[in-house]
Structures are given as structure tokens and as C-alpha cells.
């Protein structure tokens, strides 16, 4: 890059990912596709500070001009943290008369069965700020009781005196007819013109009042907070001379403009984990693998997702702000928005190994995190963790952790693991190996649940491993599930941030429309989709997406009559004008999916349509790093040293070659056992695996028998 003439335009794209510990930046040169990474410590008191710091550092290091930035995507935990910490805006709820407590009653269940002190979560809006509006619709959207406009005015006046920062309106059956909600909004706005109003029918036009209401309430709480945050960030970017190109990543791995993010911040709550899966989908696709299981393992948790045809699987709901343990159902607040379908478990480098009162060895979910961190960090945390076990087994190099920036105390790790070994009368190595094997089992079960449990055969997939700890554990998971291939991305520690640069612009629309399949009025479906498409087109236009880059994907939620749980399937592409054939196609597609997911389905059963969905996509140019030159299989030049590493397969420690990933080049082949080290990750190649460096710089691991074939 240094040979670019001074003053010439050198357009680039930026992704900035703010996490709890680090803020990562990815820069892609628009012309060459070359990618640069910068990592700095986060600034939790004001996360936008680190964003600016990392930006300045990058511009300086790359001698780039801020005004050459043509696209900036930000991933942030501001939305999630606001909900978890209960720091949302002072919000009022307006709800149908007789149903004031829908939010507080919630699902009426307890998160933990045998803990008489563990309660359902407190309502996001206290009862005193929930107001009843006289009106009522029936399930078809017909008016049973007309809207009492005078009463709406009275409530609005009450709100004026209470310094309300945000308002949410959720009326029964508003998904079937939004007229009352809209009228309420207009009336309230006359009194409080400056207070943002979220309408449930506008945000999530789906039946099931508590879920819709909760989604709208989370949004309303966030509007002022995210608005301020994004505003601050925009001001700083402007001051830094960055053009007005800020986008944010959503829970479904799409991106939206900062303007839309301010109106619909509920879409941001799961943006962090989504970016990783998007990245895995992209990197897998670039390497020619369209079916991918994404495996992101960090310090505290491991997240597994599934990519089918280069597209991450999407779920339609999740829970934000769950309490401590990941397994506790109903301890958080439900949000009905599309979200990348992930299984997250408490298994990370910091996960603590312990002995339960029955005498069994357990790993996680409690974690030492990054601070105080594993025993080997030397911060006084003495319990053995997964990282300590990896260190004892020789898999991690104590002098090359984060490129040597952090020295690990191998002695402390051994001491910690030894306490466990003593309890079980095992050797130090056996105990360390046990910790790793149990952590691997937990992650294997999670990988099984995103694949097998959802009707996919892992043998048809590629495991894309990243995160600081992913490449250490990938081979064990692949072996257990017979996944034939592992792809280790370049720079695994920041692969997640790369996802910011490869996400498409996405807008999701939904409308409940409960009809027996046989009675579907295709004209009605057509009308809904047209409305969605128009709205989508308008949003995409506002984000400067060229018409040729737009795509509209109609989806439909279906179930058998009598069921109360839907499956989302793509709408049949055949002509809707031919109603009969379209309907039989729809029914057949649904039956097929039901068979795949649940293992049974009966074509003779009646099905019904529940929701019509549309995703409007604006395609983004994705980075495609230039192919590396093949230098042949010999990787000898990349060997830095040798050390003893323990593997069960070899029945003990065995001397292994240690490679520096930076020194490897395309075409290099390495047979296990071997260790590949780089700045922010370590890859383990067990004795029964072999690795190949592909032209994109990925490491491809396969069981030895496959490679030689």
C-alpha cells in the first residue's frame, strides 16, 4: 500500500466490533480486497471512545484518509447491555383495557424448577407506567369496541407530567388490524410530539400478545439510549472527517443504516454473535464450502451455528438478558425478531474444572473469564481452567500468547491442574486431558444440537473454527461427529469482526395471517408481499442500494392444523396466479420440511399458514482476498521449534513440530501431530489429522485418511 501516491483516492471499508474486552477493527482496501486488522482494549464506560481510538490508530498505521471510507459497519453490545443492566429509558406502555398486566404476568413460569428463590424476571416497565386504553378488536381485526379517543387524550396528559422518554403501544389483535394502534399514536403525538412511539403492529406484526408486547417494549426502552449512542458516534465520526456511511449489524446478521437502527434498535441485541456466523458463512463460501457448522470459542462461551447454502440458519425469536446460567429458560425477555440460530454453552478458555459433590469431574459453566482469568494468568485465580489444561498438555505456548504480549505461567497452570489430578489419583497429564475431553464433549453435544437436532447430517458439513480457542478444539469435535473437514480462518481471533464487512443489508417484515392452506387467498398474500416489497424498496433506496443489488425473499410460517408451533419455509417460487398448484406446492414443501426436522409428517393432514414474511436484501460487495501463490507442500521453513505435546492417540506426550502460521504459504501440507501458532490463536493438528494451506490462506484440516485419498 505504501507505493500509492500521496493524495490519490484509496477507498476502503471498515468494520468496528465492540466487545466486552476488545474492540476490533477490520479494514478492507476496496481495490485490492486486502484486509487489515487492529485490536485494542474496549472502553466500557463509553464504548464509542474505543471505536474512535481504533479508527485513528488504523488510519495512522495505514496512512489512510478518513474521507476515503465508503462503508462503515459497527457491531455493538450497547443494546444488549442496556437491557441486561436495566438501564433502558423511562418508558410507558399503552395497552388494551383489561390487560394491563400482560407484561408483568408474562409466561407465568419460573426459570428454575427447584430453586424457590429464583423468580421470573421483573417486568421491564413497572405497573404504574402501564395504562389501559378502552378498545377491543377480535381475532379477525374486526372492532368489538371502538377506541375511546377521549381516554387516550387523558392518558397522554398524564404522561406529559411524568417525564416519559419513550412510549410503546400494544393493543390486542393489532397484528390483524393496526388501525387502533396508529390512531393512538397520532393522538398521543399531539400531546408529546418529541417522545418516540413504538407500535407493536409496526415492529412485529405477529399474534401472541406477550411476545409481541415484550419485543415492542425492548425496542422502546432502547430507542432513546441507542439514539444517543449512535448520535455521539456519528458526531465523532463526522468530526474525524468520516463520511456519513455508518451502518449497524443486526441479530440476523444483516446490516441496517444508523437511521433505521435508531428507530428499531431491538434488532441490534444479538449483533455480536451473528457477525461470527456471517463470517464463517462467507469464508466457507470463498473456500468453496457452502454447508458450514460455525464454531466460535472464546474465553467464556462457545457458540455454534449452522450455515446452509452459504446462508446462516435463522430463528424467529430468542430471549435477551437471561440470568447467569445459559440453560435457564424464561429468565430473560422474549424478543420476536429474526436472529442467527445459535447454541451457546458455557465452555471457553476460562471455563473452570471442578469436582461435584458426587465425585464427578465437571467443566464450566462457571468461567474465570479474561479477568482474573485462568490460573496461568497469575492473577490469583487458582482453579484449573481449560486454558490451563491446554498449557499443561503443551498445546499452548506460554511465551506466544497474544503474540507474546501476555506471558502465561506454566507452573501455575500445572499446580492448578495437579489439585484435580490428586483428587482422582491421576497423573497431571491425564487430568489435563480429562478437562479438555469433557469440554470437548460439551461442545460436541452443542454441535450436535445445531445439526442433528435440526435435521442436518454433520457429515455433509465443514466445521469453520475461529475465536481465540476454536482452533485448539475443532479436531476433537469434527472427529466425534464425523465432520469430514475443518477450516481455520486467517486471524481466528478477529474473524467475527470480518463478518461486519460481509453482511448484506437486510430488512425483515412479518404479518400474521392465519388461514387453512386450502383456503389461502393468493391475492391476499400477493397484496401483503407487495406492501412489504414497497416498504423494503423504500428502505433500501434510502440506504443507496442500487436496484440491481436488491433481492426480495418471501417466506412463510406453516404448521399442521392443531399445532401451535410453526416452521419457516421459503415460499414456493412457482406462479401464485395458478392458485391450485401453488397451494399444493406450499403444502408439500411444508410436509417435506416437517419430515426433515421432526422425522414424521402426514401429507393427508391439513396444514395452515400462520405468518407471511419477506426479507428485503441489499447485496454488499464482499472482500475477496487475492489468491496466494502456491509454493508447494513443503512447510519446513515455517517450523519454529519442537516441543512435547500430549495426545491420547499417542498414549502420552510426543515431540511435535511447531509452525508459525505467518510463515506458511499456500499449498503447504502438514501432517499431525503438529501445532500451528499465530498472534491470537493456536491450532492443534492431532496425530490422525493432516492440514493444508489453501489459496485463501485458510488451514484445512482433514482426517489423515481423507487427505491421502
Amino acid at each position, binding site marked *: 500500500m505504501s507505493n500509492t501516491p500521496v493524495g490519490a483516492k484509496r477507498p476502503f471499508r471498515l468494520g468496528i466490533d465492540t466487545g466486552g474486552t476488545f474492540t476490533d477493527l477490520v479494514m478492507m482496501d476496496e481495490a485490492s480486497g486486502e484486509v487489515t486488522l487492529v485490536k485494542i482494549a474496549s472502553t466500557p464506560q463509553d464504548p464509542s471512545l474505543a471505536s474512535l481510538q481504533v479508527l485513528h490508530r488504523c488510519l495512522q498505521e495505514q496512512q489512510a484518509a478518513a474521507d476515503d471510507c465508503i462503508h462503515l459497519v459497527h457491531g455493538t453490545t450497547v443494546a444488549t447491555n442496556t437491557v441486561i443492566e436495566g438501564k433502558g429509558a423511562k418508558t410507558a406502555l399503552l395497552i388494551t383495557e*383489561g*390487560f*394491563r*398486566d*400482560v407484561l*408483568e*404476568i408474562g*409466561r*407465568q*413460569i*419460573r426459570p*428454575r*424448577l*427447584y*430453586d*424457590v428463590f429464583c*423468580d*421470573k424476571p421483573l417486568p421491564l416497565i413497572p*405497573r*404504574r407506567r402501564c395504562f389501559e386504553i378502552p378498545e377491543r378488536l377480535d*381475532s379477525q381485526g374486526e372492532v368489538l369496541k371502538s377506541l375511546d379517543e377521549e381516554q387516550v387524550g387523558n392518558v397522554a396528559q398524564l404522561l406529559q407530567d411524568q417525564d416519559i422518554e419513550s412510549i410503546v403501544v400494544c393493543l*390486542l*389483535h393489532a*397484528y390483524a388490524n393496526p388501525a387502533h394502534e396508529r390512531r393512538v399514536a397520532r393522538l398521543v403525538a399531539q400531546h408529546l410530539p418529541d417522545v418516540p412511539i413504538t407500535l407493536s403492529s409496526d415492529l412485529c406484526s405477529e*399474534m*401472541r*400478545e*406477550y*411476545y409481541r408486547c415484550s419485543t415492542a417494549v425492548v425496542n422502546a426502552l432502547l430507542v432513546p439510549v441507542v439514539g444517543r449512542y449512535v448520535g455521539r458516534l456519528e458526531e465523532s465520526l463526522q468530526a474525524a472527517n468520516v463520511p456519513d456511511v455508518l451502518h449497524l449489524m443486526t441479530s440476523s446478521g444483516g446490516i441496517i443504516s444508523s437511521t433505521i437502527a435508531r428507530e428499531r434498535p431491538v434488532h441490534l441485541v444479538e449483533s455480536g454473535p451473528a457477525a461470527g456466523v456471517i463470517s464463517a458463512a462467507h469464508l466457507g463460501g470463498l473456500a468453496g464450502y457452502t454447508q458450514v457448522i460455525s464454531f466460535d470459542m472464546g474465553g467464556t462461551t462457545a457458540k455454534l451455528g449452522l450455515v446452509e447454502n452459504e446462508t446462516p440458519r435463522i430463528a424467529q425469536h430468542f430471549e435477551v438478558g437471561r440470568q447467569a446460567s445459559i440453560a435457564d*429458560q424464561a429468565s430473560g425477555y422474549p424478543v420476536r425478531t429474526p436472529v442467527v440460530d445459535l447454541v451457546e454453552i458455557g465452555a471457553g478458555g476460562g471455563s473452570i474444572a471442578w*469436582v*461435584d*459433590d*458426587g*465425585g*464427578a*469431574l*465437571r467443566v464450566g459453566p462457571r468461567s474465570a473469564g479474561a479477568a482474573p482469568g485462568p490460573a496461568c494468568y497469575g492473577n490469583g485465580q487458582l482453579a484449573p481452567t481449560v486454558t490451563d489444561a491446554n498449557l499443561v498438555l503443551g498445546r499452548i505456548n506460554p511465551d506466544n500468547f497474544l503474540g507474546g504480549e501476555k506471558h502465561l505461567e506454566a507452573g501455575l497452570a500445572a499446580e492448578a491442574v495437579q489439585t484435580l489430578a490428586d*483428587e*482422582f489419583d491421576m497423573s497431571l497429564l491425564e487430568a489435563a*486431558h*480429562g478437562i479438555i*475431553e*469433557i469440554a470437548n*464433549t460439551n461442545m460436541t*453435544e452443542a454441535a*450436535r*444440537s445445531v445439526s442433528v*437436532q435440526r435435521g442436518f447430517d454433520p457429515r455433509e458439513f465443514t466445521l469453520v473454527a475461529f475465536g481465540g480457542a476454536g482452533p485448539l478444539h475443532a479436531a476433537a469435535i469434527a472427529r466425534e461427529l464425523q465432520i469430514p473437514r475443518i477450516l481455520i480462518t486467517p486471524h481466528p481471533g478477529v474473524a467475527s469482526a470480518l463478518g461486519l464487512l460481509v453482511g448484506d443489508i437486510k430488512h425483515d417484515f412479518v404479518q400474521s395471517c*392465519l388461514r387453512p392452506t386450502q383456503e389461502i387467498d393468493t391475492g391476499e398474500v400477493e397484496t401483503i408481499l407487495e406492501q412489504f416489497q414497497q416498504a423494503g424498496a423504500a428502505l433500501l433506496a434510502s440506504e443507496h442500494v442500487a436496484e440491481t443489488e436488491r433481492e426480495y425473499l418471501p417466506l412463510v410460517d406453516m404448521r399442521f*392444523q*392443531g*399445532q*401451535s*408451533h410453526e416452521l419457516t419455509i421459503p415460499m414456493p417460487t412457482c406462479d401464485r396466479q395458478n392458485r391450485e398448484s401453488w397451494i399444493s406446492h406450499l403444502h408439500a414443501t411444508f410436509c417435506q420440511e*416437517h419430515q426433515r426436522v*421432526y*422425522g*414424521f409428517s402426514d401429507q393427508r*393432514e391439513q396444514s395452515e399458514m400462520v405468518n407471511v414474511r419477506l426479507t428485503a436484501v441489499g447485496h454488499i460487495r464482499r472482500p475477496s482476498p487475492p489468491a496466494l501463490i502456491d509454493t508447494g507442500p513443503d512447510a519446513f521453513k515455517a517450523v519454529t521449534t519442537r516441543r512435547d505435546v500430549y495426545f491420547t492417540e499417542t498414549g502420552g506426550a510426543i515431540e511435535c513440530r511447531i509452525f508459525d502460521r505467518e510463515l506458511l504459504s499456500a499449498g503447504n501440507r502438514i501432517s499431525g501431530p503438529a501445532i500451528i501458532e499465530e498472534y491470537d490463536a493456536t491450532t492443534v493438528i492431532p496425530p490422525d489429522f493432516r492440514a493444508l494451506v489453501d489459496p485463501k490462506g485458510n488451514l484445512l484440516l482433514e482426517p489423515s485418511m481423507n487427505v491421502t485419498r
Partner: protein
Amino acid sequence: MRKDDPEGTFKEPVHESRPQLGMDPIRFEVMRSAFQSAAEEMAIALRRAAYSTNIKTRADFSCALYDDHLRVVAQAFSQPIHLASMVRMIPAAVREYGPQNLQPGDGLAMNDPHLGAMHLNDVGIIVPLFHKEQCVGYAANVAHHVDIGGLAPGGLCISKDIYQEGVIIPPTKILRDGQIIENVFQLIAANVRSPKQMGGDFRAQVASAMLGGKRVTGLYDRFGNDDIQKFNNELMEYTRRWTKSAISKLPRGEYRAECELDDDGVTDRPIQLAVKISILDDEVHFDLTGSDPQRSSPLNANLTYAYSALSYVVRCMIDPDIPINDGFYSQVHVSAPEGTVVNAKHPAGVMGGNDIAMRLCDLGFKALSPALPEKVPACSKSVICNMGCGGEDPHTGEYYTFMETLAGGYGARFSKDGTDAVQAHIQNTENSAIEETENNYPLRITRYELVPDSEGAGRYRGGLGLRRDWQFPGHQATLTVFSGHRKKGPWGLFGGQPGRPSSYTLNPDSEARDLPSKITLDLAPDDVVSYQTPGGGGYGSPLERDPQNVLEDVLDGKISSQRAREIYGVVVNMASQSVDLDATRQCRLGG
């Protein structure tokens, strides 16, 4: 015996040193999580593919895997009432049918309460698992079906014996070669009001059990029969050791309590329950002697119910991570004289066994309250609060059945208020969405809200009950109220007041006819039935409640300012939204 412990309540822990596993701990943990994940996979499959709201939303089911000795190896469920359903019902069914009569591809159905099942709505499906032509265990699930025949829709009825409660299924072969035997299923379906839903739920149960079978067979291929045998034995021992060590930390002694249920639904005579809990070194015994003889009514429980409830009480007092299998159950013993409402014999009706079980939970906590005051809650709503209805849908002409169980107030605790409107103890069923109900059934819900002032007052207050009103537009429906706690509210502890009793009202805005807590009604079109569920009991004297907490409740409209003054002695200045401290002091001094 310690000097400061003349009654010998405190015990030295049973295990001086850390217990040791009898097999490789790594392999043990790997196998344990593999079996557990197989059971959970069964549960996910059943829940997602089932038809009725009951299974899907309310998650009223349980899945488990057994070894060839019919010991539970792994179990996945959301309703603690199923604690013993799996450990008693499934083995009883297999033994009754004879394991030697089962071939690969076979499956049994069973719901007979007098052979160890719960009420008739809970139907079990059992599939034997074969590995190398040898039976190595069983996969089974139990799910609550929305209707099972009987006197009234939804399986809820004021019955006098089991025959009136619906179709009884002794252990019966329902699957051959992995397929439902159509005429056997038809025989069952012909006796229920919603055969279509039952068919869907049945298929989901079968798919779930077969899936469990497939997973376990895979585990046998992976680990081998010998290692799995070793693991099964070790799992029981491990669980037993852990349970013993946990029980050894509880205060040793004998604890007793008694209580009364309103009535039995057929007569007005209250039902007496009594429990004596003996905490020994490393096991717990429950003796229910003193509980009433069984009734000619639906308010009877068999020992499966009683056992579930009391196992739940034990689990709440010990480490909740202890696995649930025979190793745990071997340390918990429940005895009750035969022919009582807690150990009813054929042909007693058991429709209301859940309500007996629910009350046994609260009774257990009450008995333990002197010994473990910081661990047990005051009485929660302590009734299932059932509503069941059915009729001809005026739009489709088809017969529908619907049922729902409502939340109520949770009991207050040592350091915390009871939660408002939540399920308690053995019951953790989700509510059905109003919008979905109105879309799927010809019902209209006209109110769903908390009931102010229904809490049991206390230093920590009980939770509020809730109100739900149903209307039946344009058709004649049959509705059953099946509940309780209408005469006396849930008790408080240590000076806490009882929660407000429940109430049931026909047409609350016009004739407002008070209904008993157990009744089947034929409704006129457009009638409204209103439920107000009980509040939870309070903990400690209301005069000791932090006035600030009383203020918050008043501002939230949960407690009236009048009640704040009269019961809590707290005077709230509504204009300034603050506590009038002087007036409060006066008020509390004056009593």
C-alpha cells in the same frame, strides 16, 4: 452430640473426604452428558412437533431413558409433578406387560393410575431398545392429552370413581414394526372429544421415543455394552452418594404439619392432610398417616402423586444439580396407609390428584419451617386452578375442547416477597396466549390482570393472584371449574397473613353468581366466567414491612392505600407519592 445442640439436630457430614467414582471420571462424564443430551433431544422433538398447546406451550410432558433394569438413566422435563411419573409409572407398565413380550419395533401405551400412572390425561409411550438383538433399555415419554373422555370436556370432571374420568389404558401394545397399530389407536381415539389433536400428539410422542431409541442405540455402538452397564451402575452410586451427602447437611429431626383442603367437589367435607417428615443421617422419610380416607370424588392421589410432590420438597432443600434417577429416589421414602386420599386404591377417581400433590408440597415446606426458616416459602397458590371447556364451534360445527391452568401468588420468603401471578412448585405450565386462543377456539378472554390487595401481608408479602375472564360468544359451552383455596387462603409463616382466597363468578358484570371451586356448568351463549386465583401467604408481621416497599406497591396499584394503612400501618401521602413517616410511626405504635 454437640453441646450447643441438645436435640441432636446438627449432624456431621457423612463423607469426611471427597467421594470417589468407581470408573474413569472422564469417560463417566462423557457418557453422562451423552445420555442427558439424548433425553433432551427427545423432549425438544416432542415439544416442537406436538399439536396441543398443552404439550407445546405448557410443556406438560416428560421424557426419559431407562436401562434394562428399568432404572432411569436420564430424564428431561419441565414439570416437577413428573418427577415420579417416570420412575414409577413406566417400570410398572413394562413389568405388567412383561418385558419378554416386547420385540424390536414394539411400543406400549399406558395411563392407568391404579397401575402407577398419574391421572388419565397423562398417557405414556414406551419403546424397548435393542442392541445386537438384546433388550438394553427403554425410551419413554408421558404427555398430558387435552381430553381423555369422561364426564366433561378437558378431562376435568367431578367424578365419583375412575370410570367416570375417561378411557383407561392398561399397558397395551400400540406400536408394531415402529408403526402405530391403527385399530388400537382408533379404540382409544373413539373415546375422546378431540381425536385429531390426540392423534397429532400421539405421533409426536412416538417420534420422540423412537428418536431416543435411535440415539441410545448409537451410544451402545460407541461405548459398548460393558462400559454402559458399568456406567449405569456408577451413575446410580454417584447420585446416591451426592444425595446422601446433601441430605446429611439438613437438620436431623422429626417435623410435622397438617392442613385442610376446602372440600372434595362431591361433598362439602374438607379433606385433612397430615405429614411427618423424618430427616435421618442420609435419607428422608415422609409418613402421611393421619390423612383422610379416600373419597368417592376426584380429590384423591395415588402414591405416584404423593411421591412426586415430596421428592420435589427434598430437591428444593438440596443441591438442584443432583441428577434425577434411582440413586436419588433410593434416599427418599414416602409411606401412606392404603385407601387414603394420598394412597388411593382402585376404583378411586384421581382427577384432582394434582391438587392433593400441590398441597403436599406446601405442607412439606410448612413442616420444615421451624427447622429451615430461611429456606422455605409460605404457602403459594397451592391449587392447579384448572379451567376446562368444550362445545360445538359455531363457525366450523366441530366439537372443541380447551383447557388452561392459571397462575396465582407465590408464597413470601425469608428475604423476598412472593412473586405475583406465577406457577408454583410441581406446576410450571406456561399460559396460553390470548390472541392464539381466540384464533383457534370460539372463546373470548375479556380480562387478564393482577388482583390488587390479594397478597398475604407480611414483612415480605405473598404474590398477588390473577384474574382471567372467559366469554363464550354465540354457542353453548360446557365448562368445569376445578380449583380450590376458595374457603381459606394460602397460609402465611411466622406472623405473615394468609393470601386472599380464590373466587369464581358467573357473569361478574350482571348477575354475578358465586361459583364453588369445583363444578361443571352448562353455559348460555355469551356467558362470562371469571376466575380470581389465590394470593400467596406472607412471611413475618406486616407491621415490620419496610414502608418504602409498601409505598412502591401502592404506587403500582398492587395494594390500596387503605390496606397499606390498615394492615401494614403505613400511611402514604398520595400527593407527594411518599410515606408519611410520622403518621406511619403513630399508626404502627397504636397498632
